[in-house]
């Protein structure tokens, strides 16, 4: 059996074999996403008058996209999303890297540390949001209780746009740093100890070791973690949804929340789809930036 298989495999060209190995992924993607995404674009070019939906879908061309440009709420939600990205992506990276380095210390018993590293992430998003809402609640929240103990007046964390944004960012960083730490910890584990031993012999300080060995060796892991954190940050939904519901007013509403509202509450499928397509465009721009950067900087690894 294996005798028969080996020569056959050898005959197969690498691109052929590669295509074969990619096939299951492609098939699954076709079924589960490519068709729905096609429908999404098609829907974004149509509109239904919800005052009279029985009239059916009308072809409107790019009208839904044009409407977005005049929609203050869309721009506000986009801006708010950008704030969450700019604050929480680096925030989660720094906190996550710190946690990964701490967790990489030589503990005698590993699992409690590892577990605590991953618990934030294992807590379903919706409930993480609800718990943080509770922590920041005016009357029965821990945060105000602790503030009161040091003599600070209670703050309306969830009813002030700035404070609410801060509270949401804290919750997101807490949740996301766990994912970051997991990715980076796996990367840390692959750095050979011998490198540090050699540096130690050369008299390099801990900080020098970190900058000269750890960071460069971690680059692929950091890169993967950053891409996915950014994509997830663009789609920020559950935590602000649970914590403030977008309030006060629409102040803390994200783009994903607005899409959700337009589609499933307002039943404006055409407009919701157009917003989703725009969001996809933003994601593409952001990630292609990353891709270009890594291709240039870690060219050796990626190209050959």
């Amino acid at each position: 059996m294996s005798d028969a298989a080996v020569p056959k495999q050898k005959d197969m060209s690498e691109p052929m074999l590669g295509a074969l190995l990619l096939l299951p992924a492609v098939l699954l993607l076709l079924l589960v996403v490519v068709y729905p995404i096609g429908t999404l674009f098609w829907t974004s070019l149509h509109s239904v008058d919800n005052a009279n939906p029985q009239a059916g879908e009308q072809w409107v061309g790019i009208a839904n996209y044009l409407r977005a440009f005049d929609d203050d709420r869309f721009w506000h939600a986009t801006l708010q999303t950008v704030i969450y990205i700019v604050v929480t992506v680096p925030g989660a990276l720094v906190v996550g890297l710190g946690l990964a380095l701490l967790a990489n210390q030589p503990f005698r018993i590993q699992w409690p540390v590892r577990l605590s590293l991953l618990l934030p992430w294992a807590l379903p998003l919706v409930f993480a949001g609800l718990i943080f809402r509770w922590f920041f609640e005016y009357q029965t929240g821990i945060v105000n209780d602790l503030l009161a103990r040091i003599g600070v007046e209670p703050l309306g964390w969830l009813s002030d746009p700035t404070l609410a944004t801060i509270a949401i960012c804290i919750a997101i960083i807490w949740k996301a740093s766990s994912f970051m730490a997991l990715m980076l910890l796996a990367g840390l584990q692959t750095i050979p100890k011998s490198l540090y031993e050699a540096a130690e012999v050369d008299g390099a300080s801990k900080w020098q070791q970190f900058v000269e060995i750890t960071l460069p060796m971690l680059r692929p892991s950091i890169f993967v973690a950053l891409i996915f954190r950014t994509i997830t940050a663009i789609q920020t939904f559950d935590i602000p949804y649970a914590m403030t519901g977008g309030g006060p007013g629409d102040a803390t509403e994200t783009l994903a929340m607005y899409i959700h509202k337009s589609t499933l509450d307002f039943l404006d499928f055409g407009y919701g789809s157009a917003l989703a397509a725009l969001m996809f465009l933003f994601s593409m721009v952001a990630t292609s930036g990353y891709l270009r950067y890594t291709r240039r900087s870690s060219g050796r690894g990626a190209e050959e």
Partner: protein
Amino acid sequence: MNFNFSRRTTVWLAAIIVMVNGFFPAVWILLTSLKTETELIRSPITYLPEAATLENYMTAFTAQPIGRFLLNSVVVAGLSTALCVLISALAAYALTRLRMPHRNLIMSLLLAISMFPLISLMVPLFKVMRELGLLNTYLALILPYAVLSLPVCTLVMASFFQDIPPDLEAAAMVDGCSRVGALFKVVVPLAAPGVFTAGILAFVNAWDEFLLALTMMNRVNMRTLSVGITLYQGEFAFPWPLISAALIIALVPICIIIAVFQERVVGGLTAGGVKG
């Protein structure tokens, strides 16, 4: 002597920081699950339960079939993780260790998939699953969940596969292994930390997911935990002690799985370290 002491202090400090950060909300949930609702709404708030009770756990088990939810989640998350890791391993191998044209393009396309917000795909996806007759079956969640984590798993494994020296693989093939055989006998074991990281990612993604699970499974006995827990909620009331108890029940199995997988991340590393 002095160095030793500071070293131990560092380690302890590290442990405390990481554990406080990670355990704090979980411990808070645990404490809440032992409280009564009366105690919860008191102001000023109490930290430790005044009269700990297990009643919430009893209610959690009797009010909803939480055992069944648990089983469903384990089946769905387990199978989708296995499927996702397998498919991603093949794809990652093709993209990193074979001469493929347009590798970067394929990689970018794969990434692009994960950029579509799931919420806007819900209606078409529901239609696909209905046409296939998969609603209220495990496959209705296993397939999309495998796709959900496919990009991240492929990228994670690709970044690990890249670092494996080609001669190790060549040596295996000289020993009579096929290319695919070499993938599973040499590359995957050497990249074990990456494979298990991918596994954990896929598992937790599936375990947490809410919107799809709500939409694809509408029979009570097919609900998964993340949806099931919300069934304890009322239109107005949010019974925190009861929901906390349900959350703890949901957290226990995932903690066990993470602990076991984490062990393998370390185990795989030591095995790799010997060879490297």
